[in-house]
């Protein structure tokens, strides 16, 4: 007799194969687009064959859950603006973590095998932390709660105590079959409340500027939780184990790479409450000197080389299309235009590359920090469009909270024009020395408007 459930394992193996191919292809700009399609196809068949798993029931609920969750996820992801992508990654990652934690909860209610349960407890803890932490990251990036770090004395001690308490309850859940009067239905909710609370409290003191690293870390957490949950079933689900562990490892490495790009350690990101402390004792000399768009246009028209350094302000103002237009006009006038891309400009590594690619700026116009920095002394005009901390020369000054972060050395250019909405500070909350330099001028206004004004003025010249 043909047993349909026999196809599950071969299909899961094929799924993993396609996931790996997909991730591999996503690591190369030329094949990246097809990578997600491979992974998506694999996910689809894995989901379908799972319905064939022996001795399942509740199929109607299952289908309803897929339709509801899948529908909501699909619509929200389709409708959101490109600038909001970082927080969307955060929230979907949180949902994965929440799903992992819920699986642990169900398995812990059902099984009593200690060896299996211990992995479910660890998976549940990590998944729950990832869930509540990602939700906070989402709320911070969405601007629904304060982005600045929230700190109070003894915060880290409180957080560690909560984590320890969660671990204790986790152990109690494991040991409850052995002569403990407390029931699982009492211990389990307490365990999850503490785990959720830890993720919540651990993320609150982290500033918005560090969120990309934190999201990447929670992404790795969710992967790990999924991997551990794969073992929590009576027959291990190796598709979950392998895919989860791959994401856990890849996510951890990605987190390290991102932190390195900001010259920060992971512990510094997590426990540094970066941006909470105001720098004291340094007074920036000079004043911010405003300039009009027409004057900037003249300056640009007679320049031979222009470098554009974009930042989050460009993303917020959706100015990338206008920036591309400006680039075209400048190039038609024989001006060389390059883009200086700081690895952590914007809210995620690669954020600027994505936006500029959307606007149609060719890849060979984009330069890494290390490639472009030697060119600044020979650059006539640098346009800083909505970037702040990544061009702050305070990073070269000992004692500054930014000290040691590699920056774009735009202050070495002959002229620096800063397009900025107002006189506020950057994400890190630190005064920017650059704005007070003699070669710097401020062009106030919304980035999209300012850039269009520049383009108009240039066309008239």
């Amino acid at each position, binding site marked *: 007799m043909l047993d349909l459930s026999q196809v599950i394992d071969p299909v899961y193996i094929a*799924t993993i194969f396609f996931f790996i191919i*997909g*991730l591999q292809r*996503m*690591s190369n*700009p030329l094949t*990246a687009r097809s990578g*997600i399609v491979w*992974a*998506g196809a694999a996910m689809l068949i894995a*989901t379908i064959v*799972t319905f064939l*798993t022996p001795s*399942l029931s509740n199929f109607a*609920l299952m289908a309803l*859950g*897929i*339709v509801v*969750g*899948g529908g*909501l*996820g699909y619509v929200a*992801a389709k409708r959101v603006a490109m600038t909001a*992508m*970082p927080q*969307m*990654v955060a929230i*979907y*990652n949180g*949902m*994965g973590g929440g*799903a992992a934690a819920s*699986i642990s909860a*169900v398995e812990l*209610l*059902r099984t009593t095998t200690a060896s299996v349960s211990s992995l479910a407890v660890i998976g549940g803890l990590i998944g729950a932390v990832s869930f509540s932490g990602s939700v906070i990251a989402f709320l911070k990036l969405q601007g629904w709660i304060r982005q600045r770090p929230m700190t109070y004395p003894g915060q880290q001690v409180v957080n560690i105590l909560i984590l320890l308490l969660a671990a204790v309850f986790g152990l109690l859940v494991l040991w409850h079959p052995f002569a403990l009067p407390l029931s699982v239905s009492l211990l389990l909710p307490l365990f999850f409340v503490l785990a959720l609370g830890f993720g919540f409290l651990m993320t609150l003191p982290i500033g918005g500027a560090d969120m990309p690293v934190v999201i990447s870390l929670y*992404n790795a957490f*969710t*992967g790990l939780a*999924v*991997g551990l949950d*794969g073992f929590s*079933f009576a027959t*291990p689900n190796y598709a979950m*184990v*392998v895919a*989860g562990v*791959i*994401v*856990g*490892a*890849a*996510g951890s490495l990605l987190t390290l790479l991102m932190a390195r790009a900001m010259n920060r350690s992971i512990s510094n990101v997590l426990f540094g409450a970066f941006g909470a402390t105001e720098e004291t004792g340094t007074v920036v000399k000079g004043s911010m000197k405003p300039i009009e768009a027409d004057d900037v246009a003249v300056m640009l028209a007679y320049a031979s080389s222009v470098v554009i350094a974009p930042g989050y302000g460009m993303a917020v103002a959706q100015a990338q*299309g206008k920036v591309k237009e400006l680039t075209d006009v400048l190039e038609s006038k024989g001006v060389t235009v390059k883009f200086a891309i700081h*690895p952590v400009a914007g809210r*995620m590594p*690669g*954020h600027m590359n994505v936006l500029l*690619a959307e606007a*149609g700026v060719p890849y060979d116009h984009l330069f890494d920090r290390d490639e472009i920095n030697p060119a600044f002394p020979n650059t006539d005009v640098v346009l800083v469009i909505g970037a702040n901390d990544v061009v702050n020369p305070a990073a070269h000054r000992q004692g500054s909270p930014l000290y040691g972060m590699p920056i774009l050395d735009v202050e070495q250019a002959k002229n620096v024009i800063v397009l900025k909405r107002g006189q506020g500070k950057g994400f890190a909350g630190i005064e920017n020395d650059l704005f007070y330099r003699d070669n710097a001028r401020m062009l106030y206004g919304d980035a999209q408007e300012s850039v269009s004004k520049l383009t108009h003025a240039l066309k008239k010249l």
Partner: protein
Amino acid sequence: MIDLTSVWTAVYVAMLAAFTGYVVISRVPVLLHTPLMSGSNFVHGIVLVGAMVALGLAQTPTEQLIGFVAVVLGAANVTGGYVVTERILQMFDRSSRKPAKRA
């Protein structure tokens, strides 16, 4: 009594998977960090499969409720993760890109 053979199999599998994840990511340009983070976010959406099994094996109403929540969250992770990654990567595709939106 724990069956040690299955424990070691699990360790083999987990170790090789960890190496795979590490190798796949290690030579990625900064440009692709965001799409890859989003892509791996989609891959751990495989949690949906586990959520379906957990719900399918659930018996009490409590288990069913939590299992249902797991399926909803897992399904949102899958579709949302896919669409977000797709949208980010769409911008890297030169041939089929729509002209940039003018505001």
